[in-house]
């Protein structure tokens, strides 16, 4: 059992008043709030330990390097990677996917080859592949969405073929909450000789991830969605594949030797980390991961499922409210619409009540097109949310409905 009041006390922003009302923060799918420990870790580093990392012989540089590299090891353990050099620091999920598109894609995907995604992808797992397809004349195939917001494995079986070079799928849909059957998708991809990338941006904060057990080739996520700083993220890749991939950006840190006759590149993970990274952010990301581990990802999972079930029951009882995304396996996200009412209007009314939800297409326009809707209202819950907050959301929705009908 989690002590929610104690957990809430760790997050200073939860005490903020918004428009003189108590903040009810239900936009965790977009970004999660930061515990004091994370905020402190970043400022402590700047106050006491800051210097540029790697290669510096002086004391501060060494401390910084150790702290930074320890986070790499920590993330390695957190996602159960085989080696710490399979963990590449990025600016976030988008940056990590673009890295793979630019390097793996440019080298291994050629004219006529196929890339397979699902219809529920975030734009950041669509557009980089479209850009690659424009350049390399390869083909993007889409596993279609079903009415309940899931995909069918038989569709995946049909679309993933020996022509497929890469399958890039979202673990948990940000717009619908659907948890995809990625274990099966990984098997199907490998059976056809394709590599598979898992976008875990909406999964990493909700349940345990073991990249070795999954046997995925790449897995990406953002630090800010797991209670860490913005501008941090992780690309996990299997050692063998990362070694075969060309570098992404050129610059400092990613080289072994540089001369005008020719340059040689550094080993993993530095080959993919050109330039001074977000050192403080990465160190604080380590604190965030530690915080989550101390609470226990299994405990988080159990509690968030309980909140999801409670909220689903309460929201379903509101007349004229439709939930989009009704998969059996869901994370704590509820996308909904009120009959005849635009989601933007609902968002504005809730905002005036201090309730933060997200409205719009959630960077997943194909999902909205599938349902032929302009967008949805999305409430997404974290382990610091409470049933009382769900009740306040329900009250807010009822008020919005009354005002807008």
């Amino acid at each position, binding site marked *: 059992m989690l002590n929610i009041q104690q957990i809430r006390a760790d997050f200073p922003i939860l005490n903020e008043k918004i428009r003189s009302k108590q903040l009810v923060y239900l936009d965790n799918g977009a970004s999660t709030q930061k515990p004091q420990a994370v905020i402190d870790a970043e400022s402590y580093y700047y106050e006491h330990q800051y210097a540029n990392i790697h290669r510096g012989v002086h004391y501060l540089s060494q401390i910084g390097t150790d702290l930074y590299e320890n986070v790499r090891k920590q993330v390695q353990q957190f996602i159960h990677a085989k080696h710490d050099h399979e963990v590449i620091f990025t600016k976030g999920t988008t940056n990590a996917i673009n890295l793979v598109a630019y390097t793996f894609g440019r080298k291994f995907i050629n004219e006529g080859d196929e890339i397979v995604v699902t219809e529920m992808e975030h734009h950041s797992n669509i557009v980089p592949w479209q850009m690659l397809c424009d350049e390399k004349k390869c083909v993007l195939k889409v596993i279609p969405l079903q009415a309940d917001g899931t995909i069918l494995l038989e569709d995946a079986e049909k679309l993933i073929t020996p022509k497929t070079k890469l399958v890039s799928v979202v673990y948990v849909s940000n717009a619908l909450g659907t948890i995809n059957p990625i274990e099966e998708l990984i098997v199907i991809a490998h059976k056809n000789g394709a590599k598979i990338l898992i976008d875990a941006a909406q999964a990493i904060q909700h349940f345990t991830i073991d990249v070795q057990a999954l046997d995925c080739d790449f897995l990406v996520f953002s630090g800010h969605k797991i209670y860490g700083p913005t501008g941090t993220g992780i690309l996990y890749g299997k050692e063998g594949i990362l070694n075969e991939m060309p570098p992404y950006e050129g610059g400092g840190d990613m080289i072994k030797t540089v001369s005008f006759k020719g340059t040689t590149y550094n080993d993993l993970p530095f080959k993919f980390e050109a330039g001074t990274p977000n050192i403080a952010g990465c160190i604080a990301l380590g604190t965030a991961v530690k915080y989550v581990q101390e609470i226990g990802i299994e405990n988080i999972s159990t509690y968030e499922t309980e909140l999801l079930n409670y909220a689903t029951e309460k929201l379903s009882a509101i007349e004229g409210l439709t939930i989009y995304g009704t998969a059996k396996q869901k994370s704590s996200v509820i996308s909904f619409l009120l009959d005849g009412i635009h989601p933007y209007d609902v968002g504005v009314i809730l905002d005036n009540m201090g309730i933060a939800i997200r409205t719009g297409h959630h960077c997943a326009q194909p999902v909205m097109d599938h349902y032929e809707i*302009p967008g949805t209202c999305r409430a997404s819950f974290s382990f610091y949310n409470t049933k009382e907050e769900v009740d306040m959301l329900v009250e807010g929705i009822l008020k919005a409905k009354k005002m807008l009908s």
Partner: protein
Amino acid sequence: MQSINNIQDEIIEDFSMYDDWNDKYEYLIEFGKSLPIMEEQYKTEDNRIHGCQSKVWLHPEIKDDKLFFHADSDAIITKGIVGLLVKVLSGHTPKEIADSDLYFINKIGLQEHLSPTRANGLVSMIKKMKTYGIAFQAEH
């Protein structure tokens, strides 16, 4: 015809009666609902203003050297604000519209709807209304 600033001042006075957000939005919603729905023929891609949250359509028409606007939105609060903008600017000369200073939005506390992050198309709508003002001014 009242001047642009006179209309703005009237709106500011109307809104001064509302001391909480609830009343203000009730008014906007009712105002939005009371406005005519734009005829489908005007809801063209050319008249569409792109915002990622709500759709806004704006159709200009020049009559007796005055510039008139017809506008609509699929979100009712946006439509209410769109309606206020039309009320303020429509029926004036292109020059008056191009030179106008829309201070009423801040005064009635709706400036947050004009933040670009809202992405509701209102910022682009104001820009477009003024651009029409400049364009028609050049034509006449």
